[in-house]
């Protein structure tokens, strides 16, 4: 229920002298003989932070939260993001003291329980990937990509090879080229076939001894399983290159097929997608990677090892490790949620989750294809990309308009305008945790929107607190920080 007073900016709520006493007075005496901090280091003015009493802090953020859509509150079919339900039990277990309260420089002896769990997780991710070498280190998918590319680079260097080019289809996620560039590779984008698959001829034409890695999302960002993935892999291997599987879409294939089995040499997981680490309004995530055995010695440090004889878990640095891509072990809090999820479902459950994800997506596709174009056919994996090109031509209603109008119906919008290879793209990923009732209600809303007057849709959303922020102006004169009004 609305409350405009509570959603002013924190800084506008501030009032000198209000606040909360969180900390006690000092319980230690002043001491002498220890060097004093000189004036040159000391702050000269009090910090300009806002002063707000706790009740107002709470009311502020509670009200802000209600201006969000979220999986907990709304169907959120954001394609490529796997907005599945995040089990509450995970939140409870992630707060267990050894998980939440261990310091990264705690000794191994103090965290055997935690290390044992992380060790198991490494093994489970290897099994799910069909790739034996696992590093839990990267902080998110993008960092997983970057890390795997460095791993590959170290492998090539070790072999005395000068491989400089990373290839990817035009439908690739933006992080693929960005990570390749960050890792110092030249980026080569392939157009891909009209049918949405990798075009083998196009690929072949680009491969040579400069080829390092082909990065491909599979199922790809059109929601299609790369039919020729095995041939792709053979082609790459034939020139000494490697195949990187962007695992963002693993939710489609768990227990059905494995990147290692279909020719991938490396991959990342997005634990925050496939394995329900919540998305946190933009992170944190975890982007563990899995690689073939010959790449394992290059993995970043540390990995968890187990000495069966002593039943002892320890951290170790792989033989030819590329080093660290971040401080400490990894995003343990999120990795644990992934572990909890896998333990809850087991092999059968994971497979069933993927089945339901694919079933739900195909069902939704079947319910919308008569009024929305679906350029890549009427079968998909866990998501599909529809297009509002017909609507745009006929009535001027764009994908963005439809997306905004869905908000009025109480649904979050699908991913829009991605992948770039589809005009007016609406990428829908319902996930397995949504009910038939919800899918039907969503399809009905989409259908209704497609026959609503164009003006109504173009003016949407009508029921939200704001409507179509001016992004152009925002970018032209960026206001990124509140400042006290002049007076």
């Amino acid at each position: 229920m609305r409350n405009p007073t509570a959603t002013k900016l924190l800084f506008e709520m501030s009032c000198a002298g209000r606040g909360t006493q969180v900390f006690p007075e000092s319980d230690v005496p002043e001491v002498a003989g220890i060097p004093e901090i000189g004036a040159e280091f000391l702050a000269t003015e009090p910090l300009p932070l806002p002063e707000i009493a706790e009740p107002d802090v709470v009311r502020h953020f509670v009200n802000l939260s209600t201006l969000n859509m979220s999986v907990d509150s709304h169907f959120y079919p954001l394609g490529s993001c796997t907005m599945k339900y995040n089990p509450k039990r995970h939140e409870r277990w992630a707060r267990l003291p050894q998980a939440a309260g261990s310091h990264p420089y705690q000794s191994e002896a103090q965290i055997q329980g935690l290390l044992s769990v992380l060790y198991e997780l490494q093994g489970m991710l290897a099994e799910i990937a069909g790739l034996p070498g696992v590093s839990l280190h990267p902080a998110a998918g993008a960092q997983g990509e970057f890390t795997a590319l460095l791993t590959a680079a170290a492998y090539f260097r070790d072999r005395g090879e000068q491989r400089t080019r990373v290839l990817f289809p035009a439908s690739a996620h933006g992080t693929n080229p960005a990570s390749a560039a960050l890792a110092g590779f030249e980026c080569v984008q392939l157009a891909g076939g009209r049918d949405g698959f990798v075009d083998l001829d196009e690929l072949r034409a680009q491969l040579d001894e400069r080829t390092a890695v082909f990065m491909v999302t599979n199922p790809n960002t059109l929601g299609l399983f790369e039919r020729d993935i095995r041939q792709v892999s053979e082609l790459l291997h034939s020139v000494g290159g490697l195949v990187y599987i962007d695992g963002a879409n693993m939710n489609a294939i768990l227990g059905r097929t494995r990147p290692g089995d279909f020719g991938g040499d490396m991959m990342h997981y997005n634990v925050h997608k496939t394995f329900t680490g919540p998305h946190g309004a933009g992170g944190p995530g975890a982007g563990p990677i899995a690689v073939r055995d010959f790449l394992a010695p290059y993995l970043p440090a540390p990995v968890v090892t187990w000495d069966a004889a002593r039943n002892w878990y320890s951290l170790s640095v792989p033989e030819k490790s590329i080093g660290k891509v971040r401080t400490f072990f990894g995003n343990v809090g999120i990795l644990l949620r992934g572990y909890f999820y896998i333990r809850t479902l087991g092999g059968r459950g994971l497979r069933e989750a993927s089945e339901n994800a694919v079933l739900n997506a195909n069902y939704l596709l079947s319910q919308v294809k008569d009024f929305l174009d679906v350029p890549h056919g009427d079968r998909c994996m866990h998501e599909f990309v529809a297009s509002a090109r017909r609507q745009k031509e006929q009535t001027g209603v764009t994908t963005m308009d439809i997306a905004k109008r869905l908000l009025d119906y109480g649904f979050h919008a699908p991913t829009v305008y991605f992948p770039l290879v589809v005009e007016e793209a609406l990428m829908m990923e319902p996930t397995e945790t949504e009910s038939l009732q919800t899918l039907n209600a969503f399809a009905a809303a989409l259908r209704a929107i497609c026959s609503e007057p164009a003006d109504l849709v173009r003016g949407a959303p009508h029921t939200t607190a704001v409507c179509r922020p001016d992004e152009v102006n925002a970018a032209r004169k960026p206001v990124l920080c509140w400042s006290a009004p002049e007076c």
Partner: protein
Amino acid sequence: MAYLFDTPEQRRVMLDAIGVESVDELFRQIPQELQLGRELRLPEPMSEMALEQEMQQRLGAVAERGVCFLGGGVYDHFIPAVVDEITSRGEFYTAYTPYQAEASQGTLQAFYEYQTLISQLAGMGVSNASLYEGGTAVSEAVFMAMRVNGRHGRVVVAGTVHPEYRQVLETYFSRLGTEIVVIPPEGGVTSLEACRQALDSNTCALVVQQPNFLGCLEDVRGLTESAHAAGALSILAFDPISPGMLKRPGDYGVDIAVAEGQPLGTPLQYGGPLLGVFTCRSEYVRKMPGRLIGKTTDRRGRDCFVLNLQAREQHIRRDKATSNICTNQGLLALRATVFLATVGPRGLRQMATLSHQKARYAASLLTQIPGVSLKFPGPFFREFLLETPMRAEDLLPALSAQGYDVGPAPGRFAAAGLAGLERCVLVALTEKRTRQEIDGLAAAMRRVLQRG
């Protein structure tokens, strides 16, 4: 199965609507020979209750853990209950990155507030909406410096910067041909002279940490001036509670200030997820990595917030993006926002001064133990390097056995240029440590060293 979703009856309805016989038929998209013909070899599914009982056994016990005097970038700070209460609201933690502004004003406004709070804290013009953690923030800062001044040849890094930050930097730049010049510490700090010598006309930036990894305070103003004199940018990694007492990065005139934001309301979690704080001068904003939230108005003139300057980002600029980051550390940025709003300027000052007073008290007690001394003569903030007669790898487990966890020992980073400190350990204090605990640590150390 733990979650009973589509029922057989529902499956039937859906399959009929799709026009296929079975779910298997849907999976025919995957060539038969690529399908895994068996079940994954994973532990059996488990109910909520049973798995909870197991996890309580495996992750519930902390009997081995001692009182935490551990430091080295993340610290055992107090987190007010409000922080957990707010960030455990599903509307925040089960939302995605705020792409649809109208469905994400809560997140967007909170991150705009985060950016402002962090700017206020750092005394810098602008903050982004978070990076992964402190280590990658340093590397991203160096990349950004390169974009700002177009220099790629060299980066000069104080040897007193956290060794893990430097390890990350080495990994990030391993293939880029940039020379990383490390200035060896002198007396626990960075020599201005050595620094001036290392900075050349190809140097994009100088990287310094305040207080540094060894607990000492650097002459950041002098170092910044020498960087600027060489045409390089000055990058500072700072302790985010230090502005409660010490000068802010902005007060020294640095160009980019980054931090490990964990002390601002994030639990330790064995070192992750953490919070990468990233701020810079306003004029460099278009070179920044990461998400930025901007204020604007909507069609009806109402104030509102959007993801701004997305054209810098990977989903638009792809291989030319200012960073490859996509998922960042939203929830932890929210934690920091609620944390700072709750403790306020008074609370942050208290955290800083309590931590400092307790560090002094601890140092004073510990250095009364025969053979124990401060390694460096200069002042420290809340963490100090202690030299003892014992090798750190013997001392630390012995102290843990007595119920006190101290460290890290810089010796473990000998490869990172911290050799010669084999008998040194870091001791870190926060507002949480009580006098009794500090006295206990001193007594324990006395016992351990007496026994030899």
